[in-house]
């Protein structure tokens, strides 16, 4: 499609503003002023709409069809929640409004803290982190602050399995820690002996996603967290896969000290094409004094206030977090209640196990020694041996009208394909996706070029990522100024 810049011209404008009803002030000094035009588009409202609606039609999205991205929890986003976040009384509140004039929002936040506390089993909650990765940073800073205050600032090693999300090691570096890898065993779980060997006097934390990135619950979790505690470290749960555990199990009971929760996964807030999300952090009583400025405290039915904790490690965002996302998550918990949330996880588990059962005979299923949780990982090794990679099958799924699963993750599975259906897909949609994959397998046998050439039914064909890096084009070049200008 043409860019908005190519449509621009003729001094057009898409907004109308009120007349200036105050006298004009003396102009700014000339040497402070911008020289020449900015280069913004000149388009009408109608042209702007055509452009962006045109762009929108090129996207796949949850309201169009199944989006089985493993570890991403692409569930349905309830429509009422969009209206809620846009209510003038909620969306129109300035973040520096005094507490007394912001009691509605503070109460919603206080209640959401309580709900997340009940769900995770932890007494402390901060809603500030803007995303899962920022929640991880928050968690590690809490842990580091705790060690430093106890005179153990030398503890700077973060243990994590080789199957960890990329954000875990990246966050560890950002928090000033060193990553120490822990092996997975033949069951696809953390090897307790390797953890025992690596936990020690320098251990700051053990970071673990549970269920892990193979979709498996770490069956020896109590033993793992105890090993780390005995070594003087703390346990961090990456809550990316919390959709498996609502009302079923609580991180606090398993020996974790702190976890984050992705509201844009488990709590149905939309992904927005890559954000915004929210990554609240829940923690043990020992870590509460270090929570970032500020925490909402007080009576959820009475007066609430923003409060700085005594040894707060600082601040992650200018204000109180992605509050618009928090409103949606609050609405989700209120709509479903405890029973509804447990149904979410039960159905997420059933859907994933059902799909795994249907695909088992057709793909290699690594670590298939029992039920999976809310997602599972297939290997495309068998198909790769015939010259068709997992990437090709993923692209072919696009032709069949589905989004592809997460591919090539976790790194410990060859040609990995990680499938998370979520609870909001019905059996008919699950079956249709399975049939599409089986159809692709037939093509792999009979007409593999259909798969390796895919996609062909999409707005563009396979894109050249090498050229994109070699000949960087990150912005639309400016048009040459017309002569005489």
């Amino acid at each position, binding site marked *: 499609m043409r860019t908005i810049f190519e449509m621009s011209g003729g001094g057009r404008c898409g907004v109308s503003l009120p007349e200036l009803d105050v006298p004009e002030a003396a102009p700014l000094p000339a040497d402070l002023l911008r020289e020449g035009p900015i280069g913004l588009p000149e388009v009408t409202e109608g042209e702007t709409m055509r452009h962006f609606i045109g762009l929108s039609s090129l996207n796949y999205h949850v309201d169009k069809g199944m989006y089985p991205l493993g570890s991403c929890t692409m569930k349905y986003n309830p429509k009422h929640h969009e209206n809620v976040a846009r209510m003038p009384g909620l969306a129109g509140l300035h973040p520096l409004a005094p507490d007394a004039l912001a009691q509605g929002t503070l109460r919603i936040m206080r209640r959401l803290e309580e709900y997340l506390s009940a769900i995770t089993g932890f007494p402390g909650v901060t809603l500030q982190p803007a995303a899962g990765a920022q929640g991880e940073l928050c968690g590690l800073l809490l842990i580091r602050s705790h060690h430093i205050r106890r005179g153990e600032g030398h503890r700077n090693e973060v243990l994590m399995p080789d199957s960890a999300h990329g954000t875990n090691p990246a966050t560890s570096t950002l928090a000033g820690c060193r990553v120490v890898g822990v092996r997975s065993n033949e069951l696809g779980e953390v090897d307790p002996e390797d953890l025992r060997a690596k936990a020690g006097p320098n251990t700051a934390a053990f970071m673990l996603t549970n269920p892990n990135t193979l979709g498996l619950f770490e069956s020896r979790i109590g033993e793992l967290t105890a090993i780390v505690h005995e070594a003087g470290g703390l346990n961090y749960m990456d809550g990316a896969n919390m959709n498996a555990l609502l009302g079923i199990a609580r991180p606090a009971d398993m020996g974790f000290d702190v976890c984050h929760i992705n509201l844009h996964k488990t709590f149905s807030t939309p992904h927005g094409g890559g954000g915004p999300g929210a990554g609240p952090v829940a923690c043990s009583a020992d870590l509460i004094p270090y929570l970032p400025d500020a925490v909402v405290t007080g009576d959820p039915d009475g007066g609430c206030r923003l409060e700085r904790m005594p040894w707060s490690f600082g601040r992650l965002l200018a204000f109180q977090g992605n509050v618009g996302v928090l409103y949606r998550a609050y609405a989700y918990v209120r*709509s479903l209640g405890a029973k509804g949330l447990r149904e979410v996880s039960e159905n997420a588990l059933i859907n994933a196990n059902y799909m795994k059962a249907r695909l088992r005979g057709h793909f290699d299923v690594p670590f298939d020694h029992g039920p999976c949780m809310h997602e599972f990982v297939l290997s495309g090794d068998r198909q790769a041996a015939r010259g068709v990679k997992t990437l090709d099958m993923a692209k072919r799924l696009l032709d069949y009208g589905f989004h592809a699963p997460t591919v090539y993750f976790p790194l410990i599975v060859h040609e990995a394909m990680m499938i998370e259906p979520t609870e909001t897909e019905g059996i008919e949609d699950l079956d249709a996706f399975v049939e599409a994959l089986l159809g692709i397998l037939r093509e792999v046998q009979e007409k593999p070029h259909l798969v390796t050439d895919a996609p062909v039914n999409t*707005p563009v064909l396979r894109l050249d990522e090498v050229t994109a890096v070699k000949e960087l084009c990150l912005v639309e070049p400016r048009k040459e100024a017309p002569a005489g200008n």
Partner: protein
Amino acid sequence: MGRYIPNGDAHRARMLDEIGVTSFDDLLAPIPARFRLAPGALRLPDPVSELDLQRELDGMAALNTGAGMACFVGAGAYDHFIPAAMDHVLLRSEFYTAYTPYQAEVSQGTLQAIFEYQTLIARLTGMDMANASVYDGGSAVAEACLTAMRVTGSHRVVLAGSLNPRWAEVARTYLGRSEFTVAEVPFLADGSLDAGATEGLVAGGCAALVVQYPGYFGVVEDLRPIADRIHAAGGLLVVAADPVALAVLRSPGDAGADIVVGEGQSMGIPLSYGGPYAGFMAARESIARKMPGRIIGRTVDRAGQTGYVMTLQTREQHIRREKATSNICTNQALMALANALYLSLTGETGFREVALQCYHRSHHLHDRLLGIPGVRPCFPGSTFFREFALEFPVPAARLLERLASRGILGGHPLPGLGEGALLVTATEKRTRGEMDRYVEAAAGVCGEVTR
């Protein structure tokens, strides 16, 4: 079942049968029994219907009395007009229910929109390129410091004392590693950077000097001599800019900045008690490969048609893991789209008009308030754009309370500058009538003391 779960009991039974288990509990076998919650053990309030939830939230919203007031508070978030057309795009499922564009062939809408966002931000800031957003203005400042450290190899940054204190605190939180040092350079009586002190602080090498433009207190200062000073010391100039001011002011790129960051909330994003907003981040081309976060690039497909992809991904956490330039994954994509949409709707003329109205309205209010006996400017003789600091002859809390009783959010207290000091702004939304009410109420409170 329930509104969002299609499979009922009959489906579940059929599916459990296909799985080869007899009951749902069999699927929980991997969870040690002592960690399993009994059904019903989770305690939360009973669920409510959509209608009842709306009623409950209407009640909550009514308690946000500050939301309905005439807002003269800025300090990092501004009450601007948001055109109605915006939500008609932002509520398209195609945009808001999509994931990160990992499958580029079915994500060209998001990818091209973000490419256009990058272009708009680059043009506004006067830089060569921009990334696809970070969380907010504060985290953008922090990421800019880390980027400057990667570029220069130095582990020391200097923050202007006139940087938004919340952004400075975010930066200090992100830069808490023991090998990093953060210094602060004071400002002078007119709000400008202390040149002599800067010289001393950057001497001996530093990664970056971070200045806000206009400063936190609203003061506009020529960036060019500041750029020369930090460049002479081998560091980068990081400018945290107000995007609305950039419609009118010399672009930081033109003045010599190396990295320009800021808060995108002013460009079409509701106040929403602090988020979701969008931090923007732009830089010179030579810095592109050291930038954090997603970056969209233009390329071609197998048939030679133009298309867009996430590029330079070897910087990012999912590839580089502990060696990534940042841990950011989820960013603020939909808010970046809102920025692109806002800058398209307002465009070259409309955006300048917004900026100029902020300028004129703020100056009008400033001049009227200075007419009240006892009120004086905190930074006499300085130039401001759309926000200003005044010292009132009464405690700020008392003045703000009185203003609130008249339906006015009067400003943000600046206790560091004085008991009666207040940071005040007026956007294009503030009417002459609201300003009259402000001045009248303020004069009343001040009169009670001076009389």
